[in-house]
């Protein structure tokens, strides 16, 4: 019966029908072909039941917190902070770009938000400083995929919800891989800067550095607050997310005073739409999940992987390669929700820690946001830089390679993900 999935799911996807609707149609087509007495009411009922979860309510709150911070002009503060510390190194402004993406990731959990927020300021200033436009756009696109790895992260929320791994653990596990990504990217930037003799910025005095810290500390407290609240058990993830949104609201309305009341409806609507389109996917994926369960896709994949007569090392490489292909064409949110429940049991049977499995799947699929031919971060950076898409993609390749290197570290050195998790337990 699996043929019906190939006959409906992939062609419809390829025709650019929105994924939620592809999932509805594929489920209905499967029920039709299967015959029997399964009611079509399964689809609306499972859509609602899939969305009806208090845990998943942290998604809209994290989105809202990110949007409030972003509209509250935090990007400028974060840029000044990064500039004060790494600006004086050769290739300084490009390093600032990477660091701001990492900081931004610590406040927001969405990669595209990072590309547009950081890119719209950094790409023009990089160009003005004499950096090649394609280099600036490619670097920013790749660096912004750190945002969903550094907590809070929407990708981890989705993965945690579909495969029952505690979201707090995933958040903590993401810290070190996120930092490694930032360091690796900055090293590559340094090599480029030495070779092409990129400019450096004047060194900032310690007084200036202190001021930069003072100006941005209220933004950067947010992730500490979220992580501390969840891991200490004071808050559930949803409550922590709601408090984060409240904090961002107070900060940008009353302390920084960068958002006016009349801007609020737009910010609320944008947040509702951003999280709503992901939540509709959660519901429709849950409906489609019935088909996958009925076809025992996860079980068959696990059996196939276990039966394969190759080393674990090679199996993991193959899984990463397959995920990379998925990520090249599909957005990370639907990919995580479709692939997560299928792959998680298989990886667990192979003896991979569920947290490490979550890191592998999420990091791999979020890197896919900056890979050609389809990557929202690349598209966004292309729009901002006005460099042709092909040139941005080519410039992004070395940085994508760097991210792959970190992904391999995460895959084969479980310590990277687990050391901090074990520390807080």
């Amino acid at each position, binding site marked *: 019966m699996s043929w019906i999935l190939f006959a409906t799911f992939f062609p419809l996807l390829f025709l650019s029908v929105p994924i939620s609707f592809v999932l509805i149609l594929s489920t209905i087509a499967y029920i039709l072909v299967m015959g029997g007495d399964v009611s*079509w009411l399964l689809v609306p009922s499972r859509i609602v039941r899939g969305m009806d979860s208090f845990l998943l309510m942290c998604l809209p*709150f994290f989105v809202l917190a990110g949007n409030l911070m972003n509209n509250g002009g935090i990007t400028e503060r974060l840029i000044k902070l990064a500039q004060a510390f790494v600006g004086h190194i050769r290739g300084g402004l490009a390093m600032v770009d990477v660091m701001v993406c990492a900081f931004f990731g610590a406040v927001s959990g969405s990669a595209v938000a990072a590309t547009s927020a950081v890119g719209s300021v950094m790409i023009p200033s990089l160009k003005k400083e004499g950096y090649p436009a394609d280099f600036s756009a490619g670097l920013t696109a790749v660096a912004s995929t750190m945002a969903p790895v550094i907590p809070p992260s929407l990708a981890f929320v989705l993965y945690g919800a579909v495969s029952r791994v505690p979201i707090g653990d995933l958040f903590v596990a993401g810290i070190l891989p996120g930092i490694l990504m930032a360091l690796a990217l900055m090293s590559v930037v340094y090599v480029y800067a030495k070779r092409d003799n990129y400019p450096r910025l004047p060194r900032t005095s310690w007084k200036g550095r202190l001021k930069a810290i003072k100006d941005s500390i209220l933004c950067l407290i947010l992730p500490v607050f979220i992580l501390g609240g969840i891991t200490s058990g004071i808050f559930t993830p949803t409550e922590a997310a709601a408090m984060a949104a409240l904090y961002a609201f107070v900060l940008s309305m009353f302390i920084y005073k960068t958002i006016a009341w009349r801007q609020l409806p737009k910010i609320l609507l944008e947040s509702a739409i951003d999280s709503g389109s992901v939540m509709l996917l959660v519901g429709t994926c849950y409906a489609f999940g019935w088909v996958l369960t009925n076809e025992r896709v996860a079980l068959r994949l696990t059996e196939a992987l276990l039966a394969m007569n190759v080393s674990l090392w090679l199996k993991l490489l193959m899984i990463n390669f397959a995920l990379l292909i998925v990520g090249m064409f599909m957005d990370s949110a639907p990919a995580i929700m479709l692939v997560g429940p299928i792959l998680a049991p298989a990886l667990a049977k192979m003896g991979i820690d569920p947290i490490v499995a979550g890191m592998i799947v999420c990091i791999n699929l979020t890197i896919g946001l900056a890979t050609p031919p389809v990557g929202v971060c690349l598209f966004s950076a292309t729009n901002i830089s006005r460099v042709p898409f092909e040139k941005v993609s080519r410039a992004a390749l070395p940085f994508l390679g760097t991210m792959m290197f970190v992904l391999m570290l995460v895959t084969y050195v479980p310590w990277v993900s687990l050391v901090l998790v074990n520390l807080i337990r």
Partner: protein
Amino acid sequence: MELILKRLHFIEDKLDRFASVIAIVTFAAMSVIVCMQVISRFFFSHSFQWAEEMGRYLFIWSTMLASACAVHSHLNIGVDILVNNIKGKAQFIVKLMAQVFMILAVYILTVYGAQQTIDVYSAGQTATSFPVSAAALYLSVPVSGALMLFYSTVQLLELISHGKFTENEIRDFFRGAAK
């Protein structure tokens, strides 16, 4: 045709205004209720029993209505590789087919969502912490489905008569009032 489209756009604008307002209100109410619940539990050791469930109801309504707004502004997540790399007639045909399939999916969502709502209502199930039928939760599906059905049909007509979609930005209620 032009006149019909003009009338339809007028109705579409009204519907979008309505859906956006409700999506904003439910989203804001959900945020306030959950924050209030946390603060009250934290400082006064008192939790409202209805808060969590009420939050979920509002959340699903906000999600479904915002999804309708997303259809209105062409913001749904999809795989655009084919349609972005072809031109002219071929692109038109692909867009047309995608739109027809989308309408089919939305139609199924609306009709069966309505049926599901009626079933839940007649089963007499209510929310556990406040006296509202559980059908209130399921009602969001046909309501949002009907909005999407209207939007996507208008979009199909736009495509047939103009060869392209009309762009709709996310509604900003105070644009112009600023400054």
